[in-house]
């Protein structure tokens, strides 16, 4: 993999940067890991059906759909508010998520598991690195755990979700942008050092992010 990402390779930007340590030697300021185990779907309430959908989500998952750009989670299922009456739903170890949501009958569901590449981000400098990339204030006074932002990072449409206080983040970009975004992330994080881990799910771990 590494040889494919050499800056000298004419198509190096079409390949994600390989797993491993990048940038400044030593302890990494940013620790990133691809996630391949998440089922993802968009959920949109039908006109006038918001209350029925909220009730169905509560009954099925014990999850209260957030009203704004926030995340709500319960029983391994998370809903991220992307727009009025529209959410991105993520779940681990629940491959039939989209079918389950469609079975609720209250909303329009689109399967997105292969549509998004997902990165979990942590490390002491992760906020500083993300602050370079997204034109939204990430200061803890105004952006904290559970907050979600749909925006563009380096002209790449992305959903950013602060998942923990340290802080930790989960970032979603379109699958076809995963390679380009990985180079953007490296460019931003190199001064602090970047540790990138594969999804680590066996031979198929690279599926969906174009690694190989």
């Amino acid at each position, binding site marked *: 993999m590494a040889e494919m990402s050499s800056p000298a390779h004419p198509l190096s930007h079409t390949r994600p940067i390989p797993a491993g340590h990048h940038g400044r030697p030593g302890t990494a300021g940013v620790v990133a890991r691809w996630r391949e185990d998440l089922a993802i779907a968009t959920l949109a309430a039908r006109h006038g059906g918001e209350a029925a959908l909220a009730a169905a989500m509560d009954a099925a998952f014990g999850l209260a759909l957030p009203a*704004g*750009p926030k995340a709500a989670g319960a029983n391994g299922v998370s809903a991220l508010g*992307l*727009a*009025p009456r*529209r959410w991105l739903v993520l779940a681990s170890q629940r491959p039939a998520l989209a079918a389950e949501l469609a079975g609720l009958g209250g909303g329009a569901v689109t399967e997105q598991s292969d549509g998004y590449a997902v990165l979990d981000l942590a490390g002491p400098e992760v906020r500083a690195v993300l602050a370079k990339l997204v*034109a*939204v204030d990430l200061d803890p006074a105004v952006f904290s755990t559970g907050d979600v*932002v*749909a*925006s*563009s990072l380096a002209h790449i*449409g992305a959903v950013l979700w602060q998942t923990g206080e340290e802080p930790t983040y989960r970032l979603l970009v379109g699958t076809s942008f995963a390679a380009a975004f990985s180079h953007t992330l490296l460019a931003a994080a190199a001064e602090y050092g970047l540790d990138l881990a594969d999804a680590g799910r066996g031979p198929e771990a690279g599926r969906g992010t174009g690694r190989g």
Partner: protein
Amino acid sequence: MRIPCPFCGSRDAHEFSYLGDATPRRPDPAAPGAEAAFFDYVYLRDNPAGAFEEWWYHAAGCRQWLKVARDTRTHAITGAVLARDVAAPAAPTPAGGETAR
């Protein structure tokens, strides 16, 4: 320039696409004088120096249409609402009219 998206919060203008004047309403094609009203609706626009209402699309965020109030002299934005909340069918008025809201 930053636009206060009602859903996403304050965002840089580069996340948005601009459409234009938010005041024209499609005329009733069955009404008398519809041809003149459509000429007005399609082609004629005011170009005010001052308060203006215009459509913006939050393409990089919530993908909602917004009706934004902007001062064309200063670019000061005094408000933004979701189009879905204000674009209910309204009485047809000519483009460039002063009462279209």
